[in-house]
Every structure is written in C-alpha cells, then in structure tokens.
C-alpha cells in the first residue's frame, strides 16, 4: 500500500476555502488539470455516495470517483476512485481544511492510500502528490488568496 500526504497554507479563511472546495462537482473550477465534471444520475454533489465523472485537461482521460464521506463540521471529505487512467487500485483519498487562527488562514491537507498497479511506485506517488495535490493547493491559493 502506497501512501501520499501533502499539506499547505492557503491565504484565505477556512470557511471561504471550504465553501469553495466542498462542491464535489467543482474540480474544473479550481484544479488546473481537470477540464470537465458532472455528477452521475443528476444527484446533488453533496449527497454521500454520488459519483463525479470528470476528464483530464491533458489527454481527456476519464475518471469516476465516489464521495464516501463529507463533513461540514470538520471541513473534510473522502472519496475513492472507480475508474482512472492512473495505474492505481484501491485508491481512497481525503481532503481536510483546518483554520489557522494566527492570520486567519487555512491549513489544507490532502492524502491518499492506494496500490500501484504498474510502473515504479515512487513515480506514481510523486506524480499524485505534486501534480495533483500540491498543484491543487497552489491553484486554490491563487484564486482565493487575500494578498
């Protein structure tokens, strides 16, 4: 089982960040690698169990992910991958947003556990950690930063 964990400071209040990212259908709005997204079956994007169906900007690759848990109290959600062009299986990931009271900012965490099904494990771990998670944080920060 491979694990990846990334975290960063976002220069905006936690409630602002959470309002922005809690929408499970909003990836194209804030992640530079994602082109389109829809929730299958016309379900609300905060209905636990719903599936988002989205495509990568680089190659049109299709991903389907299921929302497993969503908590407004803890500003966190967890999802797993159903279909992906990435060489992973048993992929479960969580995002969590914690207030930083000193400066009224947000501590953003994103982590995942999965099996790598082909190629060197470290390549996939670094790709997801840096090109998916850290790139996502940087994009959220650039859209919401106060300064």
């Amino acid at each position, binding site marked *: 089982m491979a694990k990846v*964990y*990334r*975290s*960063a*400071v976002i220069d905006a209040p936690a409630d602002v960040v959470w309002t922005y990212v809690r929408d499970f259908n909003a990836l194209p709005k804030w992640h530079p690698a994602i082109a389109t997204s829809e929730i299958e079956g016309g379900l609300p994007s905060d209905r636990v169990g719903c599936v988002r169906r989205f495509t990568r900007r680089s190659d049109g690759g299709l991903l389907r992910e299921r929302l497993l848990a969503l908590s407004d109290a803890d500003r966190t959600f967890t999802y797993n991958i159903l279909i992906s062009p990435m060489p992973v299986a048993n992929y479960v990931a969580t995002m969590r947003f*914690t*207030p*930083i*009271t*000193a*400066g009224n*900012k947000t*501590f953003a*965490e994103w982590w995942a556990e999965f099996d790598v099904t082909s190629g060197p494990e470290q390549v996939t771990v670094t790709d997801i950690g840096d090109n998916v998670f*850290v790139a996502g*944080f940087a994009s959220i920060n650039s859209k919401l930063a106060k300064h």
Partner: protein
Amino acid sequence: MTKVFVSAVVDAPIDQVWGKVRDFNGLPQWHPRFSRSHIEDGLPSDCIGCVRNFDIAGGGGTIRERLLTLSDLDHTFTYCILTSPLPVEGYVATLKLFPVTVGNKTLGVWTAEFRVTNGKEADVVEAVGNGTFGKAFEVLNEFFASRR
C-alpha cells in the same frame, strides 16, 4: 463547556518543533509565562499519568497537570489540570502538530475544553487562548528564527 482553539504556523520542520515541545517537564524552558517545573514522584516526563508541577511566572501561582496521552507518531499530547489558580474545572487540553509539506514547516493546533467556575468567561478564554497557546507559538517562531 467552553472551548478554545488556537493554531499557527511555526517556521521549522515538524521534528524540530516536536523535539522542543514534547518534554512535559520542559514548558518553562521555552514559554515565558511559566517558571520552574518538576515531575512529581520522580517519574519520567513521558510516562503517561505523570504530573507536572510548575509555576506561573511572576508569582502567579502553581499549576499541576496530568499527562493523559502522548504520541510520537501523531506528534500530539493531551493533559488535564488537577489544580490551578485559574477559575476552571474539567480542563482538558491537547497540543497537536501537523507537517506543512509545502515549505517544510509545522502547523501547531492547541485546543482546550473546560468550565469557567468564576469571573468572566472571556477573560479566561483570553488568558488560555492568546496568553498561553498563542504566546507559545509566537515564542517558538522566535526561537527557530533566531537559529537561522
């Protein structure tokens, strides 16, 4: 039940920050609000259940706190107040550190829950929140900045 939540980024890697704050007997060595500390009954300061006995600087009185949990894996410890000059009861607090991987820094989160038994709740929240927890993160940042 009153809750206090204070968090701040400390500009140092998590192992360094944890190395500084982990010693349950070491508070007066880095927090200016406190002086003198010993662990009662000669126990090691990382022995769960041990009691630290320390003073508020400037003659503010003695506090006794019991270590309830300590995790080097999760960089966290929890303790409760046994006796204190503060007008609180049922006081349980937790300090937890998280790695900020972008920039190799640390997020410190310090929380407490308690009941205020006397006086203004806002005054107690201020003393615990900014006076103790917030001040701790400030001095930790100053300490690590001075070593760069």
